[in-house]
């Protein structure tokens, strides 16, 4: 549903993701990429039909259960979606606080992750004091800080220049390779498509092609 007009964004699609895989989902605007990503990430429920993730029908879960599912998912958005009043560390620490992790542990883990994305000098800067690339690094750090089962990225480079975009995707690729993080990336960027292990091409709510690179 978008607004008041019902849209059948997705129709009878099914695909499997291996743990540690790097999948790119490409396709024109309105093809249902983001809708699918939101559903995989338990942000949204199908209005009708079923969505099975790891054998669980997400459409039957309550809001609270969906919230719990989301704790195992890392999101990276096109517009960063950082909380402006919190500094880099506060933003990265937030999912840990929500999950109820102890303060001392949170601090250690946050610093670790921020260092791993190369922001050890920028921890106390607020989003407004960071460049676009740095903001997206904070967002990536926030996505991986809870050691989620998989990371979902919705146009992560859509708001960055190509050089910065390349740096971010290199970072992400590195995390995928070194830490075995499962990645699902929705993108328009052909380069990301080529970098991924597998590319799903979506068209009008169905998967038009599924290519292993």
């Amino acid at each position, binding site marked *: 549903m978008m607004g008041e007009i019902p849209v059948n964004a997705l129709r009878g699609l099914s695909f499997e993701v291996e743990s540690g895989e790097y999948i790119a989902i490409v396709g024109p605007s309105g093809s249902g990429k983001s809708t699918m990503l939101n559903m995989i*990430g338990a942000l949204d429920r199908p209005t009708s039909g079923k969505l099975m993730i790891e054998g669980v029908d997400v459409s039957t879960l309550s809001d609270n259960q969906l919230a719990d599912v989301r704790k195992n998912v890392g999101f990276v958005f096109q517009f960063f979606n950082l909380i402006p009043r919190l500094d880099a560390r506060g933003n990265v620490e937030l*999912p840990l606080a*929500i999950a109820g992790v102890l303060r001392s542990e949170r601090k250690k883990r946050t610093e670790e992750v921020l260092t791993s994305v190369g922001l050890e000098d920028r921890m106390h800067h607020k989003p407004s004091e960071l460049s676009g690339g740095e903001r997206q690094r904070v967002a990536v750090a926030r996505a991986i800080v809870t050691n989620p089962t998989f990371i979902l990225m919705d146009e992560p480079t859509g708001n960055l220049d190509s050089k910065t975009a390349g740096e971010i995707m290199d970072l992400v690729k590195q995390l995928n390779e070194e830490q075995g993080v499962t990645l699902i990336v929705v993108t328009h960027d052909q380069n990301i498509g080529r970098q991924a292990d597998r590319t799903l091409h979506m068209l009008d709510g169905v998967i038009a092609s599924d290519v292993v690179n």
Partner: protein
Amino acid sequence: MKSRDVFSFAFGAVRLRKMRAGLTILGIVIGIAAIVALTSITTGLQVTITSELGEGFSSDTLTVSTQSFGMFGGGSSDFTLLVNDTDTINEIEGVQTSAAIMSKSVMLDFGSTELPLSVTGVDYTAYASLYSSFVAEEGSIPETPANDSVVIGSRITDPWDNGTVLAEVGDTILISWTHRVGLEMVEENYTAEVVAILEEIGGFSMGPSDLGLYIPLSTAQSFFDTDEVNSIAVKLVSDDEELIETVSQAIEDAFDGLVSVTSPTALLDTISSVFDIVSLFLVGIAGISLLVAGIGIMNIMIVSLMERTREIGILKALGMKSRTVLGVFLMEALVVGLVGAVIGVVAGYLMAIIFSAFASTLFGGDMFGGGGGPSTSMMTITPVLTTEIILGAMAFGVLVAVVFALYPAWRASKLNPVDALRHE
């Protein structure tokens, strides 16, 4: 999410918008301060008045008059009490003694100044046995007074409290009483000699007053040419409640129910309940301002909700449950309410202190000046701040803040994360 983290997250949000939070808090502060100030002043006033009344009243003394002596007035009948009615009352079992009291408004000429006051005709001995405050500080109260003697209250000598002595023992004062005979206005004059000045009584009293003038009853009878008295004060053998009841009833029966008998205890009860009503009314008015503050909170939170829709989406995307979102928003209101309530209690108490200091200078100064009539003595109000007032006001402030935040917080918690994230 742990409550401590919910608190620090909510507190951070409040701190970010200092101006807005400050104004919202101000609303709560004003409401709470008004409630605290009014409550502590009325409580203080109540304490002052009841304690002064308690001192001025002997609990074993009844007052018989032809009209009901309630706070809400009451009709007077054509029935009049006469000087000799004391004989009837003295025969009733349980009555020790009684004194007829005849009061008239007169003009007093001290030579340099004229003052409108009331003069009271009483039997000195009976009156003194009824009221322990009828004691001379200067001169002495004669047992068999000369016809032209007068006993004056302590403030008659120095009404402005500035050393202007109007009368001393041995001085003569001119009392003039104007009344009508047929169509004529007749002014009667009477020169009296001050034989005694009473000790300072202060406050309120059913008996003698600092502004009273007391002449012998027989003199009053002939001067005012009447046997009618205003009231009869009755002293009982004890202050037993049951005795007060039976004697009151017996007196009323003796006069066929045409008189009313007032006991100080009943009067105190009436005054107390009137104070309760007044303070409830005032607190109600102050409560309205708090209600306005509550609506302010609701308004601010709805605006803040719109601004922070995206933030709520982020929080939910990061796995925050709806009830935690609710908790964050309620916590923000709680912080605002609590800070406002604490400042409000302090501000209210300060306001009460300033007000009572101001009131004391206002009423404690020129007693005879201005448009008001003379008053007995200055009354100091000490604001009373009880633990009940503090806790009650704080609880009320926090409750208002949280209750009015419920709806915006509930709306925030119900936001769909995808829609919230898409919000511009």
